């Protein structure tokens, strides 16, 4: 009950935040010099036709009114049609969003796993000379951005070893099973093992590139918060009660690091989605990033707006999820 109330309290601020985000998006998109009316018509259209289209799209009204119109359509679920691809934007998003979430989710899981292992290793080395070395190692690791890992993996596994596929989501001979759009899930549901294998193999390199790039910050925060927690009185008291070191670590120290680590991961997820943009482009992976880059190159305004909003929605969803997790894990947050 308290948990639900606390979660509801946190969700109360979502509408104003979304409103602000949409305003921000509207303003930054209006900076774009492209004329959506001109582009929505064939090049042969007359000036009158363009003016009519502008009127119809509300582009001749003041900015505030335009924003209201745009917001109204948005709320009604009308995202418009792609000017360049001549398809409804919703259909484009339905294909791209699950692909990106699947990739980002896998990458985050990998980053969390690596981060946990690395953080524990760093903590185990505390106070020893090796700690300095390992710590410097994570700093170095942190300095290699995700897209460089991606290029490196392509160079090593794709080009030199030819061990892994590095373009697209699926092998050429395979058909994408329909359903949710989450390929791993769909192929399993359809019982198509070949498609599952191929999809998994296609995701290994991009997910690894993102996962390795985002693991070091998790390592560091876990390491630092473990050190903080071990200075806390309750850990000393647990040891004074004669609990074994393993139990102290697993049952008392680690749960208390969940709060800062989860907080970091929520922030990281936004950055990871940003990183995924270029990684998708590099691996020709048909996700939101590839869609956005394509739309930007073609000044495809409806798609740009829709994809940017989709990013917001995904980040917001992840934040809500993490907020729920944090509330479930930490009773102190529920009281506030």
């Amino acid at each position, binding site marked *: 009950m308290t948990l639900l109330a606390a979660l509801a309290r946190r969700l109360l601020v979502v509408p104003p935040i979304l409103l602000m985000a949409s305003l921000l998006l509207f303003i930054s998109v209006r900076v774009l010099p492209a004329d959506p009316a001109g582009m929505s018509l064939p090049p042969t259209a007359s000036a009158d036709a363009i003016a009519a289209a502008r009127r119809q799209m509300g582009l001749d009204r003041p900015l505030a009114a335009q924003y209201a119109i745009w917001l109204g359509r948005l709320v009604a679920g009308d995202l418009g049609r792609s000017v360049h691809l001549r398809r409804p934007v919703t259909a484009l998003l339905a294909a791209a969003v699950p692909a990106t979430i699947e990739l980002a989710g896998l990458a985050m899981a990998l980053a969390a796993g690596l981060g946990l292992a690395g953080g524990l290793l760093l903590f185990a080395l505390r106070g020893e000379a090796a700690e300095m070395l390992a710590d410097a190692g994570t700093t170095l690791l942190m300095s290699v951005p995700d897209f460089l890992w991606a290029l490196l993996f392509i160079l090593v596994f794709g080009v030199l070893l030819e061990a892994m596929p590095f373009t697209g989501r699926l092998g050429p001979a395979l058909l994408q099973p329909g359903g949710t759009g989450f390929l791993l899930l769909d192929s399993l549901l359809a019982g198509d093992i070949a498609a599952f294998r191929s999809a998994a193999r296609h995701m290994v390199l991009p997910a690894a590139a993102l996962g390795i790039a985002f693991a070091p910050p998790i390592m560091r925060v876990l390491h630092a918060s473990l050190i903080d927690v071990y200075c806390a*009185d309750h850990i*000393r008291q647990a040891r004074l009660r004669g609990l074994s070191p393993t139990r102290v670590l697993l049952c*008392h120290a680690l749960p208390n690091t969940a709060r800062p680590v989860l907080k970091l991961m929520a922030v990281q997820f936004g950055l990871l989605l940003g990183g995924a943009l270029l990684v998708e482009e590099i691996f020709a992976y048909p996700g939101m990033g590839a869609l956005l880059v394509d739309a930007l190159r073609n000044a495809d305004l409806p798609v740009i707006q829709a994809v940017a909003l989709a990013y917001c929605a995904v980040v917001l969803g992840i934040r809500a999820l993490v907020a729920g997790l944090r509330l479930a894990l930490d009773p102190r947050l529920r009281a506030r």
Partner: protein
Amino acid sequence: MSLLVARGLTVAARVEGEAVPVFRGLNFALAPGRVLGLVGESGAGKSMVGRAVAQLLPPGFRISHGSMEFGGADLVTMPPAARRALLGRDIAFIPQQPLAALNPLQTVAALLDEHHRRLGVRGRRLLREYARAALAAVQLPDPAAMLARYPHQLAADQCQRLLVAMAFAGRPRLVVADEATAALDVIAQADVIALMRALQRASGAAMLFITRDLRLAAGLCDELAVMHAGDIVETGPAAQVLGAPRHPYTRCLQLAIPPMDGPRRALYALPEPMPGLRALARLPGCRFAPRCPVKADYCLRSEPPLAGGAHRSACLRPGLVPAIAAADALSPPPWRPAGQAPVLVLEGLCKSFTTGAWPRRGRVDAVRDVSLRVAPGEFVAVVGESGSGKSTLGRLVVGLERPDAGRIVLAGHDVGAGDAAARRYRVDHVQMVFQDPQAALNPRRRVAAIIAQALEAQGAKFAVRERRVRALLAEMGMPLELGVRSPAQLSGGQRQRVSIARALCSAPPLLVADDIMAGLDISVQAQLLLLLHRLRQDHDFALLFISRDLPVVRHLCDRVLVMHRGAIVEEGPTATVFGWPRHDCTRALLAAVPR
């Protein structure tokens, strides 16, 4: 046959690459079922003794020599696994900060179950029974609700009761309590002490009671060991040590405590703080000699042994100890009310805060309809339990909070509105001394700059400020060269004096002091009390003294206000209120003072 025996125990700390002993060659013995009190000021090394029992020393500290035998086995050389088997079962610990010592993510039930499982209790139903029994043993009411709670939902004394319950759950042979009640309110402290005493008697466990409060130790302990600078300077049966001390340090500590009965008397303030670790390591002879009122030349040369029968002391001149007395036995000069207009008048002051969050939003009335007046030069104490609203009252007076209703009249001007004009007026008429001097002094400024802040705000010239700083430092009894130090380089007592000097810089007619003695050692407290009495003679300021410590209030203040749940329930001259309390709350507070 003793249960716990320390033989030549030495703990060394690494200070800037140098191994410095925290205490050297410590010897003591604790018999089963007895309570040994380790008493001394902070930095005496007494906490380190408790930690040495469990071998959980802070980073950089280690046991370099000696042994600590528990039931015949040496805890120092014992393999860690064997030592761990003893912890929680045969040796239990009661910590200083009860709330911090509980895992915030565990419910009371989970915590007790974990502990009982470690003690060998198996089975859900049995665990539940044990948990309920543990709560009942420490008089925690409503076990069903209590078990479902998290630590942050408990009061400090409830947390401490829980930890006491866990300590005694395993029928331990030894309980180590390190400042176990320092973080509690006066009333809660008295209750928890009584509870610990009862459980200790019932279980027959021995107890190592570490405290800096001589009076607490007097009420609880069978034997006492007084520690100074890492040495036990006097030890013996509690009644003898306190009744006829044979070491000047014990005697000085006793004289530094303001008494609760009898006439008000001057306090003995030990000069200088206890020397630091490195200074001590280089000190030849008796380590107390630099502070000792009865030292002779030879005290500085030869180290005195801990000598005597049951009551031993490490002093070469024990015969002179009874002769030590406070500087002048006169009580502080009484305050003469001047027939002037009051410096502070509060009328119907109210303040409430919202608590909790939607949907369980609530309001607490921190201050309810408070009216009072303070005459010029009068020292008025505000006492009460924690949460009684006394700190909020102080913050309202200085303007850190705005009242919901009521008037604040400061030297004839209504400043309740809290607008810019009122703020400017307040600057010259009321200042505040904060509870924690470490937080109250900007660590990035020099002491001189901090003291002269009031003049700096008025745009005074450097020479003017410099003169004022010199005068104030001299009045505070601090050497001039402290002016260039940063607050981090000062001791706790010095910091509090800087804080007072800053507040006095603009010579306001009213000072608000919020629990400024909390956490200070007895000798430092005595120094500050002497200082406040002296400053009052010279500066003629009134003081609103918010405190939890009734003996200090009795020593310092002319009038007392007792607050309870935001309202003033009793007020009057100190002697009257303390001598003939009328309200239950006042009686409870007075009864809880250890004597």
